[in-house]
């Protein structure tokens, strides 16, 4: 008897909770109508920010895309052995990265980080590599933005793949300008000596996955890899979400 009463009570409570949730959701949907960022279609109940159809359209290969070094624009030798991407570059994926970069949308970073982890697993990297390191932001920059997008991606890539994540091993010592606005010559100068390894003992003879959100010319990751190599890293591969090709 008593049990039943409690059950019905909790049922009404649940109903109230349910309708409150519905009210809350409709209120937010009214102010911020839920439409997909990349295709402008209306989102389903379970979807957030980007629709399932779009997510599916992003993935080209199960094992990610390996890009050749010649596709990048690095003068001289590269400091990493391979470079992998999760998504093909197109207008939609570029939009995705832009939104992600300039506003903290954690549901996006979960999704994209997990995808990075899936690529790692498909290639069996979790057996070979010792650690994941995100490309750091300068302290003041990170404070200004409130988060580091590579950190977020790495966190979920790490939890998906099981490779431990190490932040703060390498830091950015110079708050250099955004690469996107510079000419190629300026870019090379811009990324020189901007990273410093704080805990060299941690990376000695280790195999490392370096994660960034976008790889454009590869100059920034290459500079970071160079610093890691200098302090004894054995092998490094780079991973990113996309590689925008300037047409």
């Amino acid at each position, binding site marked *: 008897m008593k049990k039943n009463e409690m059950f019905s009570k909790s049922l009404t409570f649940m109903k109230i909770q349910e309708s409150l949730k519905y009210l809350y959701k409709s209120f*937010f*949907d*009214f*102010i*911020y*109508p*839920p*439409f997909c*960022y990349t295709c*402008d279609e*209306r989102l389903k109940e379970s979807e*957030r*920010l980007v629709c399932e159809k779009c997510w599916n359209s992003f993935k080209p290969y199960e094992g990610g895309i390996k890009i050749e070094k010649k596709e990048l624009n690095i003068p001289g030798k590269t400091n990493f052995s391979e470079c992998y991407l999760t998504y093909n570059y197109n207008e939609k994926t570029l939009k995705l990265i832009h939104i992600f970069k300039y*506003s*903290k*949308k*954690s*549901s996006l970073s979960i999704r994209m980080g997990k995808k990075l982890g899936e690529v790692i697993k498909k290639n069996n990297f979790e057996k070979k590599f010792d650690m994941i390191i995100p490309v750091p932001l300068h302290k003041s920059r990170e*404070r*200004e933005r*409130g988060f580091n997008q590579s950190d977020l991606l790495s966190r979920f890539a790490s939890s998906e793949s099981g490779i431990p994540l190490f932040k703060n091993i390498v830091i950015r010592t110079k708050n250099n300008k955004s690469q996107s*606005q*510079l*000419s190629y010559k*300026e870019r090379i100068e811009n990324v020189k000596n901007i990273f410093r390894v704080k805990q060299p003992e941690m990376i000695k003879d280790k195999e490392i996955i370096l994660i960034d959100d976008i790889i454009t010319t590869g100059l920034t990751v290459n500079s970071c890899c160079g610093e890691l190599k200098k302090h004894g890293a054995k092998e490094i591969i780079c991973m990113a979400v996309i590689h925008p090709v300037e047409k």
Partner: protein
Amino acid sequence: MSKRPACKVAIAFIIGIIVEKYASISTWYIFSIIALSLIIFFLIPKHYRNILLYLGIVLLGMLRYGAFISVPNKGHIIYTNSFGNWVEIRGWIKDKRNYFDEKTKYTVELTKIWDGKYYKNTNGRVLVNRYIEDNNFRYGQEVYIKGRLLKPRGSKNPGEFNYAGYLRNKGIFAIINLGSKSEIRFANKKNGNWFRREIVEKIKFDFINRISKNFSGQEKEILKGLLLGEREGIDPDLKEQFAKSGIFHILAVSGLHVGFVIFLLGFFVSLLRFPKLFKIILVILGIVFYASLTGSRPPVVRASLIYGIVLLGFFAERRIEPLNSIGTAGLILLLFRPDDLFSASFQLSFAAVSGIIFITSAFEDFIGNAFKYLPKSFLIRIFKKYIIIPLIISFGVILFISPFSGYYFSRLSFIAVILNLIVIPTTGVIVGLGFYSLIVGYFIPNICEPFNIVLHYLLKLLIFIADYSNKLIYSYMDVSRETVILIVIFCIFFYLGYKSIAEGKKRRLLIYLLLLANILILDRILFHRIGEMRIIFFDVGQGDSALITFPDNKKMLIDGGDKRLSFDAGEYNIAPYLKRNGIKFIDWVVITHPESDHIGGIPFIIKNFKIGSVLEMGVKEDSEIYKELENEINAKNIPRKQIFSGMRVNDSELYRIYILHPTKEFISEIYRNTNNFSIVIKIVYGESEFLFTGDIESFVEEMLMRYNDFLQSDVLKVSHHGSKTSTSSDFLSKVKPKYAVIPLGEYNIYNFPDSSVISRLKTINTEVIRTDLNGSAVFTSAGKKLVRVR
């Protein structure tokens, strides 16, 4: 569900407000329509229900507006019958502003009113004008006031600013001017919100004191305006220069300033090591405090709300649809104050934000593509970031607010597009440095000296820009309302036409062109009626002024109202009408006689418009205002012509302007005052006849009887504001006017119009039009039937 639900709902709500404003449908009707709609809602198929839902929102808008404007409770000040009488009131200061000309304006929240026997409870707000500077009393102070209770003036001439409406929007329904016979006493008690009185206002008081100590002249006043919204102390002439340059918006605390403050707060909290949620709360508290520091002016509240919606969206990790966000903001604001929809400030705020949204989305790809082909050098980068993008945004804002500023202020500013690039960052730096100096200076007074010197020069720069730029040619343009409407229509059709060409829909283009042609024809019918004469008798308060537009488009201004302390009929009553109707040239300005209430407004008109010639009868007056008038005439080299009875003014055969009085001989005689020298004019156009009698008294009327039946007129401008010494029965029996217009002011001290004059007019069945009750009177005639328009 649509992509912008808030916009759709807001539009439906707005339609409701507009319908209710102009149709004033009673609440019970609306309720019954709602009940009916509810029944229909459940009867009709589902997919029609949406329409009904929007209809429901329209009805809600109507209900809300109806409830908002419905008169307040019984004790409210508007129900007193003491308007025009001396009253004794008690209340507390809700708001205090110090004005440029050492004037103080208090908004007093009423608590009690003396009814002759007792203090009765009352409520509502009164604006109290005091003609000395008050730097002591402020928000919350209880006061006792004895003075004459006046109704604020509404828009009583076409084009004139609606002062009563402006005050009503602030909940003010009455005015008391403190003169020599009135009294103001400050009680020892305080009232109002404790937090605002003891915290916000004290900080503000301290800020103002320190600004006054460190700055002087107009720099001080502008800084007070920029930081705290206290812009009333700025010289009106300087304000006008800012307005002409199109950069007045930096003086009025607005969304721009809220943006700066949010930026500063954001920078400040980014230095702190707090959790993120705590930082956001800190920023929000900061904005709320800033808003209350500026007296919660509507533009600040609007901007804070929009920023708040965007911030919440970021926090909730939602996609932010810009238009939908401002739709939400508009809806919330209108729910609280639906009447704001009709305020210029509200419309300008939303036009500016829409302009930014429109232009950034329209040019996003354009900028990206344009810069793709340019080399990526440092200079081009700077050029794009600090010149091109701000220029485009500035252009978008000006593009969207121009129709509104043209419509309300009869002015378009073009130079502002460029000036904004200098002025806005300068303002940002001033706001930043100013607050830094005030806050740090609170703890360490001497440290701010260098900042104050920089501030001083930046403020000087602003004044220089405003002063210099409006003198450039084409920096601004005075436009008539017709021009503004036509430009907007052309822009819309240009956009529609462009779209249909781009989409290859030729038939649609044809339809648009036909529609446009029809609108242009309609415009000719509405604004340029050929062969029409139009006469407006202005309401200039206690004074006299009329403008005649003849069928050949020549204009005659007969007298120009009065000029008193802080009032100029030329500036406030006549010029707005001229500007709104695109009148830049007046062929004849007639000075019937040189009394202040007939010539006071003319100097302003001469200064700001082109004049063909001044017609006068030659008797001068030894007064300040007459000297000013002569100086203006001489300065612009305007030909002066003496006119006497028997002279012709125009050559046109279409219409006649006759001078009936005075004769040349009459001028040589000497009288106590100049009233009887008044020029008397008769205008005849086809079958319509008008008689203007200036301020003549009955003995001149007797002299005029010699014209006999020629005096007969459709409209008589009643002499001497309805004084009993004029408008005799004999004279009226000859004039036999259909309409008699009496120009006079409310609560005038002469007790015009005299009841005997009114009864004399009534006995011959003349319709009496008093400008104090009716506002301006307007007649038109196409040579046959006379039409009273207003």
